């Protein structure tokens, strides 16, 4: 896969927890550690959504975090890709809760879903590769 000029060196990721159980968050961090080491491809976590190309969202979107998810998404510069990590993104075991306002795609557009409870680091990396392909397409369309 050929990366476009904007992304051929780095893909910066911002992680947003919308009330997850920590399972996915820990797997996301595990993905970034030496065993899998995606930093050799320039993939790394950044501290501000304004620096990020990809927004990783974990958790079933609690009432308190829905608005924050929208605000974080709006702060990101185009082109951007949103990844939803984990099965509870669409309810999952928490399907009948009173405090969840998911699924995530009702609040922000989601490009890549990585299912699993929690997904393995390999699955998350696979999702990021799909996100790169999507970013490449967006770039080609001039968005």
């Amino acid at each position, binding site marked *: 896969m050929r990366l476009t000029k904007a992304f051929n060196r780095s893909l910066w990721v911002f992680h*947003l*927890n*919308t*009330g*997850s*159980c*920590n*399972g*996915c*968050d*820990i*797997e996301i*961090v*595990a993905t970034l*550690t*030496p*065993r899998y080491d995606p930093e050799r491809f320039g993939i790394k*976590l*950044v*501290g*501000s959504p304004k620096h990020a190309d990809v927004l990783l969202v974990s*958790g*079933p979107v*609690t009432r*308190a*975090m829905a608005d*924050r998810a929208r605000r*974080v998404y709006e702060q990101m510069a185009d082109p951007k890709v949103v990844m939803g990590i984990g099965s*509870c993104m669409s309810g999952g*075991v*928490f399907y*009948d*809760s*009173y*405090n*969840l306002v998911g699924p995530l795609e009702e609040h922000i557009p989601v490009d890549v879903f990585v299912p699993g*409870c*929690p997904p*393995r680091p390999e699955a998350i990396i696979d999702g990021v590769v799909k996100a790169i392909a999507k970013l490449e397409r967006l770039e080609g369309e001039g968005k």
Partner: protein
Amino acid sequence: MSEDSKNKATFNVPIGPVHPALKEPILFTFKMDGEMVEEVDFAPGKCHRGIEWMGMRRNPVQIVHLTDRICGICGVSHSLAFAKAVEQIAEIEVPERAHYVRAIIAEYERIQSHLLWAGVAAHELGFDTLFFLAWRVREESMDVIEYLTGNRVNYGIIQVGGVRRDFTEDQFPRIEASLQYYEDIAGKLLNLFLEDKTIQIRCKNCGVMSKREALELCTVGPTARASGVAMDVRYDSPYAAYGDLDFAPVLPHQYLGLTNGDVYDRIVVRLLEVVQSIDLIRQCLANMPPGEVLWEKKYPKILAACKKATGEAVGRVEAPRGECLHYVRMDGNPNPQTWKVKASTYSNQMSWLKMLKGEQIADIPIVVASIDPCMSCTDRVAVVRHGRTDILTKADLHRLSVEKTRRLAQWS
């Protein structure tokens, strides 16, 4: 300090709920006097998913898998505490071998959780090399957990009445290999974390909590033990196989000769507990009795036993972060009438207010991380009726209590 700077007004620094230093959403408000933290306030609740409410609409066999999802790091502690409470109500006798399987998986969870914490602590100090080293070492325990249970996180191995998978003899060499790996690397980890100058200057005398304060604030687990409180549910009221094992709570003075109750002591306690866990797993493997691992293989029979049960019980487990308590009341229906979870961070979080006072703003991340907070275990909801909020002080509660006593005395 000049007169001028003394008269400067304090200012508020809000941090969160989305902030790179926080792994989970929580809102802190710091009242700062220059660089010094004067007051701390925090607003948890961003992770509240209403798990107890959902649980009261499901049956115990289903809830066990919901309890795994209370927390992705200490899932087994929650499912174990819940299963213990239900077993006590329904008078289900857990086979001896299942107790050992439970203890082994709980100890592996402690190893991975403490190493995870050690990495996060190093990261909060800006020591990313050590963060990556700790997480690489942690992967070994994740591999074994996956080998034994089938999943890296949310193992789903506990069931009411036992465990869903047995650990067989042919799996022991892999377990032993991982224990050997940790034993070999433990010295290196202890050396890196405890003798390193960067960690010593940042962690010693930082976020101090005395033994008395630890008791007054009702802290639990490694946070309390680091202040010299010798409490450990595994030791004080043994569950699973811990009654048969030979061990004692880890206290910082065993390594340092004295107890300071600072962040450094919390690192000491957690790392020594990793070493202790290796020994505990070895003891479990050596003494594992043969036999079944589940009280009843057919789940409908387990369900039927739970359905008939009436009564209430408390299940207590020493999670990696401290005591985890589940209260369950069954009233003859498939679903519990009441289910209440008190995770360890719920007890520990109030110690932040004490520890952070007087610290510098740069010390906030490590002091906050030093109790190993887990908000997803802890978060609750506050119900506001008719737009009115109340804060009940100790005096108010005392008044209410006196009034109730008088009321009851009048009736009787």
